[in-house]
């Protein structure tokens, strides 16, 4: 009986956006009389933080403070079309739609400000703190709130914008599979360090080292949370989870959390993560989708580490202790 250390790697890429396109997303942006901006969507926040990045993208494009932007989503009576939150498409599609809508609203805002300041709109810049300045003349400025007030009560003009992003549907060639399925790829490389107990067959993941290339992280904290939570899910897929213990036979399917195995806090390895950015030309501020790819590199990295540790190659998931022990027996 002994514990064996092993190290394995895997490198991956992952496409951004619904395969083959055909999935529009819209956004509407408008200002209230008090200088608040509302972004209306029908996209879904599943915990990935869609509302948070929508708010950041809108504030950035409008040039206004983050806290003056509020996101409304989840009512098809008021929100424009969104195909949904899946396929690492949310931030990419929604973000592009929000940028388009916010640009249109910003142009109206600046045109009203230009009239108030008696300058050309092209000469104006926003400071992101709630004021609009004349470039080169910092004392000549007007607040966003006053511009919105004037838009409503002075001249009766809506400060609003519309945005839609569509990657057009693309049909694969039936003979060759030629197709244009994505809007760029994110990348990752993961190293897993593990220990295998040759008596119990239990694999203990000690550490993940990962590097992710994500285009641009709109919100580094949320990207970090995806990476850490995703690594846990990837490890779970590799070593624990199945709805079908005797796959493909459906019998003995787990019914609840006491039967469906997943690792818990005690099994979470140490992680060292690096993020690099190669902005995506089609992405809002360079975004690539990261929500899904964060769970992909762990299972092969772990399988390769097991081989490194004990010289057995497990080619089916999940890699249960039984499979490890059977493989060790077969090797002996």
């Amino acid at each position, binding site marked *: 009986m002994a514990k064996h250390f092993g190290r394995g790697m895997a490198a991956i890429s992952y496409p951004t956006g619904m395969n083959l396109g055909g999935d529009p997303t819209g956004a509407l942006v408008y200002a209230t009389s008090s200088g608040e901006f509302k972004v209306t969507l029908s996209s879904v926040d599943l915990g990935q933080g869609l509302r948070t990045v929508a708010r950041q993208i809108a504030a950035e494009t409008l040039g206004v403070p983050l806290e003056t932007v509020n996101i409304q989503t989840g009512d098809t009576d008021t929100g424009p079309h969104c195909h949904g939150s899946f396929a690492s498409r949310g931030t990419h599609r929604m973000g592009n739609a929000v940028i388009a809508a916010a640009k249109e609203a910003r142009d109206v805002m600046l045109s009203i400000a230009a009239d108030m300041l008696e300058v050309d709109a092209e000469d104006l810049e926003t400071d992101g703190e709630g004021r609009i300045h004349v470039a080169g003349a910092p004392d000549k400025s007007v607040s966003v709130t006053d511009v919105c007030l004037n838009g409503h009560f002075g001249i009766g003009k809506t400060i609003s914008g519309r945005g839609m992003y569509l990657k057009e549907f693309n049909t694969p060639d039936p003979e060759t599979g030629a197709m244009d399925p994505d809007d760029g790829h994110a990348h990752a490389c993961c190293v897993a360090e593990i220990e295998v107990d040759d008596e119990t067959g239990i694999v203990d993941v000690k550490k993940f080292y990962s590097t992710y290339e994500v285009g641009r992280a709109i919100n580094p904290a949320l990207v970090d*949370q995806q990476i850490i939570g995703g690594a846990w899910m990837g490890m779970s897929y590799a070593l624990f989870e199945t709805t079908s213990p005797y796959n493909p036979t459906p019998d003995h399917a787990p019914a609840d*959390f*006491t039967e469906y195995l997943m690792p818990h806090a005690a099994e979470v390895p140490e992680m060292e993560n690096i993020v690099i950015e190669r902005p995506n030309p089609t992405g809002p501020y360079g975004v690539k989708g990261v929500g899904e790819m964060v769970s992909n590199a762990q299972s092969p990295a772990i399988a390769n580490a097991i081989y490194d540790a004990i010289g057995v190659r497990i080619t089916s998931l999940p890699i249960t202790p039984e499979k490890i022990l059977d493989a060790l027996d077969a090797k002996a």
Partner: protein
Amino acid sequence: MTVKTIAVTVNNVERHVTVKADTTLLDVMRDELGLTGVRAGCRRGGCGSCSVMIDGALSFSCLTPAMRADGRTVETIEGVAASPSDLHPIQRAFIKHGSSQCGFCSSGMVMSAKALLDRTPKPTRDDVVEAISGNTCRCTGYASIVDAILEAADELSA
């Protein structure tokens, strides 16, 4: 079926609710008292999302007959913060560490953390891991939850 009106003090307010023998405390909290922060994740005691404290002891409300709460005090997630602008240190630490993504498990996680810190003001990392071992999270990978609870413990015991 037996029907009974129970008196239970929920988040410091006495409530009278008529329940059947098979009514769970979870259903009383959610359906009778509107405390929907008490989440129904599995109704089988497997995920901890429905956790509340009964007379200070952590309990799965989905497995607790409501009649057992008669004459007792129940604290739910809605009772943890002093006010919306004065959150409990555990809640503030969860926000700071990004320990909640979809949010569903957070009610139970915060209750488990509070139950731990009420009796063990200076827990070790292993204590925290054990304290949340009955709570399932599918988003975070747990590490940030453990970090937040340890930081809240430091603040509370300082």
